[in-house]
């Protein structure tokens, strides 16, 4: 096990280097560029842009800039944002708490609802309730996030005045309850998609497992229903674990549309502005951290498989 993890860590190092090189290269080859923002500002004249190009080092070839960036990273310097002049790591770090809170809430909400809904649907296969859940799930998946977000706002916040429209805190308030009230709608909107997809996967896997020989055997042997159910659930978890592993990095990188609709100061908005401004230092930092978490998430999923199903071994 330890040897396997060490081997994966080694692969991750090579992979991250490759990701950084490829990303830096194609980002620079893409049309646009960091100075485009200034080009669309009537106040910023051509001579300023020319000077900024030089000051930001954009007049050097991209591979030299990449090497400089890489040398910086290896010494722990992540660079400064082109636009705010602030250290990118600081800009990222200050978003972590809000992002993590929102994403984790949605994650927990999704787990809490997806499992019962998925198992329920599987046990009542092809009933009206199951079909209704299918429709509901795919409706949740088909409608754009902004639609759910704005509808919730209109009903719960504007009409009924039950919850605040947007933001993270009421002015001057720091109470946890206030935070929770602001969290409800974005977490619901965000959790919806995961509830829909996880519950469908779970339903399908449970149905599949229920048909397996050993489950029939267990039932025939008169094993109590609860123990059978636990076995079935355990063996139906693999696709969900895969999806969760793939989604781990999202806990860090946020969800831009939900954040924009609810004015939540999360990572998604930071990275979108970095992307649309071509703020290379910020973009690269975000990319590297996300990539690391993605690799970690997939590794954790692989380890979880082995725990769920003892037959899974990695050579």
């Amino acid at each position: 096990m330890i040897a396997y993890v060490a081997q994966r860590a080694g692969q991750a190092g090579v992979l991250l280097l490759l990701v950084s090189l490829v990303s830096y290269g194609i980002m620079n080859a893409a049309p646009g560029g960091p100075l485009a923002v200034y080009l669309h500002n009537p106040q910023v004249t051509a001579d300023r842009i020319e000077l900024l190009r030089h000051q930001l080092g954009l007049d050097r070839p991209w591979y030299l800039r990449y090497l400089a960036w890489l040398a910086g990273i290896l010494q722990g310097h992540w660079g400064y944002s082109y636009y705010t002049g602030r250290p990118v790591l600081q800009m990222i770090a200050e978003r972590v708490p809000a992002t993590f809170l929102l994403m984790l809430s949605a994650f927990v909400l999704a787990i809490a609802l997806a499992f019962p809904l998925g198992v329920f649907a599987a046990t009542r296969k092809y009933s009206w309730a199951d079909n209704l859940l299918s429709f509901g799930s795919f409706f949740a998946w088909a409608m754009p996030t902004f639609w759910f977000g704005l509808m919730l706002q209109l009903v719960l916040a504007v009409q009924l005045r039950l919850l605040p429209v947007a933001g993270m805190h009421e002015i001057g308030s720091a109470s946890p309850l206030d935070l929770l009230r602001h969290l409800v709608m974005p977490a619901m909107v965000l959790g919806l998609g995961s509830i829909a997809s996880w519950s469908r996967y779970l339903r399908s896997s449970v149905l599949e497992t229920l048909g397996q020989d050993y489950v029939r055997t267990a039932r025939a042997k008169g094993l109590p229903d609860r123990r059978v159910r636990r076995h079935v659930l355990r063996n139906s978890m693999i696709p969900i674990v895969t999806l969760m592993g793939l989604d781990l990095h999202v806990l860090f990188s946020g969800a831009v549309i939900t954040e924009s609709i609810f004015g939540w100061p999360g990572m998604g908005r930071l990275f979108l502005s970095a992307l649309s401004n071509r703020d290379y230092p910020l973009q690269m930092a975000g990319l590297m951290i996300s990539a690391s978490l993605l690799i970690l998430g997939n590794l954790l999923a692989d380890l979880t498989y082995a725990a769920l199903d003892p037959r899974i071994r990695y050579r």
Partner: protein
Amino acid sequence: MARPLAVRDAAEAALAAGPSLWALAWARFRRHRAAVFGMAVLGAVIASAALAPLLTPYSPTALDPDHSLAPPSHEHPLGTDDLGRDELARVLYGGRVSLLVGLTAMLLGSAIGIALGSVAGYMGGWTDALVMRLVDLVLSFPAIFLLLILINWTGGRAPVVMMVGYLGLFGWTGLARIVRAEYLSLRAREFVESARALGAGAGRIVFRHILPNAMAPILVQAAFAVAGAMLAEAALDFLGFGLPPEIPTWGNLMTQAEDYITTNPILAIAPGAVVTLTVVAVFFIGDALRDALDVRSR
């Protein structure tokens, strides 16, 4: 869009691979009520997109700005959009691109995902490591820039083919991991051991013995992938990497409705409902396929 049903293609192709099991499956599939519903809905949706000119007298692109945002009426059953185009016509014609993109991107992504995932899961070891690191790479690097570069080369726009290619080539990773995990679990089962003992080749084991048992998550993924590709198409349009704004797709119809969700709610709900119906149909068909392939159940 007059092609036969995509999923049926898959079923029939599968049928050819192994008569006994697959023929049985096909017989079961036809008995499935939800599947019949799914086929009917998908057929109707595809037909209405293909036959749109027969179903509506309106053009989906001709503007009539002086009659914009009209509520539903006898003349315009779904009202008109913000530039006075008949919304029903937009939804009908919108299916052409959306169905093409959604179904083909799903098929392409599924084909790559199943192939790579099953090989990685069955072989394990370095093959597995290599394929899975490829998954990590594809998921980690900002593919959107690659598209941007390609589009710049082609003069500013992604034709549908390029978009399908993009969505398919970058949309297989999740499925590959799901399939591989199933294989990791299934390859050590008794029926695989016995098939091996009987001298079955690797290809035969991978596709004839294990694949039918790994179909459950694949078929769910297929349904979500259809919806995912349709919405991703709209996102690409919005970012300026996709189709021109006058070409209707279900995705961009919804995006364009954002400002009118209170005044003209139908503009968002109508395309949303069609996407839902289509995806549910794909899911029901998949569900029936899973049932049909499951030799043990019932």
